[in-house]
């Protein structure tokens, strides 16, 4: 087996082994350290000595031994009676898959989204703290402190490894999906620093979502989220120029889109929409699929896009959805209709001074022929964004309408 193949295998097995260990022993933090050590040992030994016949059993055994050593030395240090040291047959890693329960634990509601994200990447994704720190452009010490704080919180919340009950499960799954979506977005909207590492985050989010999908193939929203990621990721090569400048959807070279990902995503979204429940990820995926389906920007089925946004607005009202519907409405009716819809967002505090509201208004004003208004709004949007690439793009639009 090649080194990258071993790495893939390890990252697939890590959450399963960790999940099993935590279920047996509680104490997430100790188990996590033990599994990291076992994975490290495997990284060194397997390429040289070959992958064992039962790699998961091997990891479980090594991790259990480390954990028990650690518990024993803790005991000795605290001078407790050694007789109570836990005796567990280390070979016994049960053959059930605990990956999902581990995800639920990492996305524990007492944690902030930033901590949920970091812990998920570390415990379920099997990334090292240094890799996560690089991806989020913070020092390793900062990320290490954040992860350790998250583990303490889980401990304080009294969470051993009791999986959520059925009533809570649905709610917790939504949190898990949101965390996966955040990881994907972090990689997708690479706004600064080393974009390569951030693109890796998008890959990682897709890998983890595939993992959840494999375990919950019937859940429409899991399928929808996976489809949305694939359909969005399919356009990555067309999204920026070689110089790193943003290319808007209607100007992208569609031959650069990844047909394989589009086909897979489209099949997934069709399957999800045929299911009994409709959710926001499925609808967003359906919108992405509609765009990806058009051979040219002019061929876009805006009626369908607008209809999908209408449904989305009804089941998950959110000013961002209304904003996007305004773009579709400007296409199906005319730019003034889109602008009229936009003006309904003016009193919304969540959108006050938001660069997206300003840039969409600029775009619709430009289409309506109001050059001065478009110029003014592109300029204001450029000043409001926190992304260098976006600011550059908006400034270039501003100069374009002026000439």
């Amino acid at each position, binding site marked *: 087996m090649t080194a990258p193949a071993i790495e893939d295998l390890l990252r697939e097995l890590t959450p399963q082994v960790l999940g099993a260990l935590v279920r047996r022993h509680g104490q997430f933090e100790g188990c996590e350290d033990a599994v990291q050590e076992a994975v490290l040992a495997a990284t060194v030994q397997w390429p040289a000595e070959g992958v064992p016949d039962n790699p998961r059993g091997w990891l479980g055994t090594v991790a259990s031994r480390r954990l028990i050593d650690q518990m024993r030395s803790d005991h000795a240090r605290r001078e407790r009676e050694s007789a109570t040291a836990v005796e567990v047959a280390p070979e016994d890693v049960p053959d059930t898959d605990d990956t999902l329960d581990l995800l639920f634990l990492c996305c524990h509601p007492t944690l*902030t*989204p*930033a*901590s949920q994200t970091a812990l998920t990447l570390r415990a379920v994704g099997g990334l090292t703290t240094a890799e996560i720190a690089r991806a*989020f*452009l*913070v*020092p*390793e*010490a*900062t*990320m*290490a*402190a*954040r*992860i*350790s*704080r998250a583990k303490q919180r889980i401990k304080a919340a009294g969470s051993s490894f009791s999986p959520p009950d059925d009533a809570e499960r649905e709610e917790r799954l939504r949190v898990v999906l949101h965390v996966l979506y955040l990881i994907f977005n972090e990689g997708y909207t690479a*706004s*600064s*620093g*080393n974009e390569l590492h951030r693109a890796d985050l998008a890959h990682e989010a897709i890998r983890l979502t595939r993992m959840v999908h494999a375990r919950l193939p019937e859940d429409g929203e899991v399928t929808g989220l996976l489809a949305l990621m694939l359909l969005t990721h399919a356009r990555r090569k067309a999204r920026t120029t070689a110089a790193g400048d943003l290319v808007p959807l209607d100007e992208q070279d569609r031959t650069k889109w990844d047909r394989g990902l589009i086909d897979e995503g489209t099949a997934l979204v069709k399957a999800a929409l045929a299911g009994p429940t409709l959710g926001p990820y499925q609808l967003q995926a359906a919108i992405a699929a509609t765009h990806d389906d058009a051979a040219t920007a002019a061929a876009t089925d805006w009626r369908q896009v607008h209809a999908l946004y209408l449904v989305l607005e009804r089941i998950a009202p959110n000013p961002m959805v209304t904003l996007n519907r305004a773009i579709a409405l400007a296409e199906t009716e005319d730019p003034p209709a889109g602008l009229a819809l936009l003006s309904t967002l003016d009193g919304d505090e969540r959108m006050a001074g938001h660069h997206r509201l300003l840039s969409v208004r600029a775009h619709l004003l430009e289409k309506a022929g109001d050059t001065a208004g478009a110029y003014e709004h592109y300029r204001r949007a450029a000043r409001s964004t*926190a*992304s*260098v690439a976006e*600011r550059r793009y908006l400034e270039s639009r501003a100069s374009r309408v002026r000439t």
Partner: protein
Amino acid sequence: MKFLISMHINPAVLDALTDEEKAAIGDGHGRFIEALKKSGELILTQALVDPSQAAVVSVRNGQPVVTDGPFLESKEYLGGFYLIDCENKARAIELAARIPDTAIEGLGVEVRQVMFADGQLEA
């Protein structure tokens, strides 16, 4: 999200403080740094030497021109900063409010989001 919390100091205001007040500011920053480190929100903090030690550099006709002293003619100068990574702007403001300087008239604490970052962070 990354934010720079910059501290604008007024040397005259600082000079007018008692030794106890100065010590309290130092202790407050010390506690603030410890808390930020524990929560995993601190990237870096640095304090700058007195503005009288500054030099302003410009290049005219290809020749560097160096003038001693600060660039801005002002009573307040940049005294130092915290570079943090936290959940959102509300959290950044909540953190900034714990900086002792915020309680002193004449000292300014400003919060701004970072837009671009590069370089070695393990300073």
